[in-house]
């Protein structure tokens, strides 16, 4: 990656993440049951496992799209869903969530670009409105990010005019424009046509390697999981079944459930 492009990436010490006995229920269905796990600062972790095992819920809790029913979620030294008041821990208010979200960015399965804005506007709107950047600064940042994702010529295009792969690249750039320290990737290539998958994955792999981001990734693509992560967590029914470096998980899984899952995924 040329040095000018690298400048566009967020830098600086990233926080670690920690789940402490986190419970999440949807109605009578407990998706997460007292889940414990931690991610080190700057670590890149991939969650794999069958659908409905609670992987995406973990990302959505971190992005404050879902509220936990119990336990604590730490980002760095601060709890996400609770704040200190008079030495006691009380539920977070909007202001606390707003503060905490500054560190976190997310890329969605369905891109979720804003159809009422041009590509450039998608990238500049939040930096201007939320971070208070000047329009010029935001455009400069957006331009170098579009350069990074290889879409410098699409700045004025309308999001719906782009291919799925291009839309997802824009969505990645949009998340990075907020300079998060933690990046959440939620099945980012599942909605793409097969021939576009590799390009987006390679882009993310490069970004992961070149930046100091703490990365949490949910995917069904085992090659991508191997490429991007320091550590792989195998999930089933809201619990960690097995974890370790990608080589170990993919080559010598110890648990039967992991072996079954990998076999099923690789067979397709």
């Amino acid at each position, binding site marked *: 990656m040329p040095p000018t492009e690298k400048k566009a990436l967020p830098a600086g010490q990233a926080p670690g993440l920690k789940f402490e006995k986190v419970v999440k229920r949807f109605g009578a269905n407990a998706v997460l049951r007292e889940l414990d796990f931690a991610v080190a600062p700057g670590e890149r972790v991939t969650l794999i496992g069958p659908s409905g095992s609670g992987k995406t819920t973990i990302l959505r809790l971190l*992005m*404050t*799209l879902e509220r936990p029913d119990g336990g604590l979620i730490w980002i760095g030294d601060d709890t996400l869903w609770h704040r200190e008041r008079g030495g006691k821990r009380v539920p977070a208010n*909007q202001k606390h969530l*707003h503060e905490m*979200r*500054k560190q*976190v*960015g*997310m890329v*969605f399965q*369905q891109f*979720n*670009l*804003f*159809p*009422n804005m041009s590509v450039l506007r998608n990238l500049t*709107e*939040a930096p201007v*409105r*939320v971070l208070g950047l000047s329009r010029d600064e935001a455009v400069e940042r957006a331009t170098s990010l579009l350069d990074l994702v290889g879409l410098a010529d699409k700045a004025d295009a*309308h*999001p*719906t*005019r782009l291919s799925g792969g291009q839309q997802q690249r824009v969505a990645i750039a*949009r*998340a990075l424009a*907020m300079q998060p320290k933690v990046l959440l990737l939620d099945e980012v290539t599942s909605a793409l046509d097969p021939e576009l998958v590799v390009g987006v994955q390679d882009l993310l792999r490069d970004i992961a390697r070149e930046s100091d981001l703490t990365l949490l990734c949910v995917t069904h693509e085992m090659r991508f999981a191997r490429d991007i992560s320091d550590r792989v967590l195998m999930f089933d029914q809201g619990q960690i079944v097995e974890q370790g470096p990608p080589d170990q998980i993919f080559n010598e899984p110890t648990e039967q459930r992991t072996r079954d899952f990998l076999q099923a995924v690789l067979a397709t």
Partner: protein
Amino acid sequence: MSDVLDAYPQLLRGAWTTVQLTVYGSVLALVLALVFGLAGTARSAWVRAVGRVYVEFFRGMATLVLMYWFFYALPLVGFRFTPMAAAVLSLGLNIGAYGAEVVRGAVRAVPKAQYEATVALNFTPVQRMRRVILPQAVALMLPPFGNLVIELMKGSAVVSLITIGDLTFRAKQIQNATGETLWTYVAILLIYFVIAQALQSLVRLAERRVDRMLGRRAEAT
């Protein structure tokens, strides 16, 4: 027939009054629709209830009854309205209730994923609404709003019953003066039709605009 044509200044004045009523009524209805429609999407159950009560009450009320109430009943307890104010209020309140349902439905029809993206980008609740949700919802509101404006325009004919000199009122005057019953009514029906068609084309124009804005149709470059 020529008698009716000779009365064209009266017809024009009437048509102008009808257009004015439509514009004032629509502006009031739009404001009410946005306020109470957005209340209907609020997080607080109390605020939602306020939106609900407004919608149920004024959708259930006949415009003409409301207008009579403003014009004949309220002055007796000390609230005096000019006929025009009574007319605009009752038209606006009634169509505003339908409009509020349109606003609420349109906001709820914006995909939840768009809302989630605004959270992920750390927009404040007001910014989410103002920058992302509403601009997309407006696209969905336009066609039904257009129909409501036409309904309001048609509904405004009842103001003739409280002596406002709109198109329908002029028709009765001309009918009495000339005895030309048939041509009088043919003439004003045609004028109403033309106004409705003009509104219709305005709506279509606005729809095309918004579609282009949201990239839903090929851009004309």
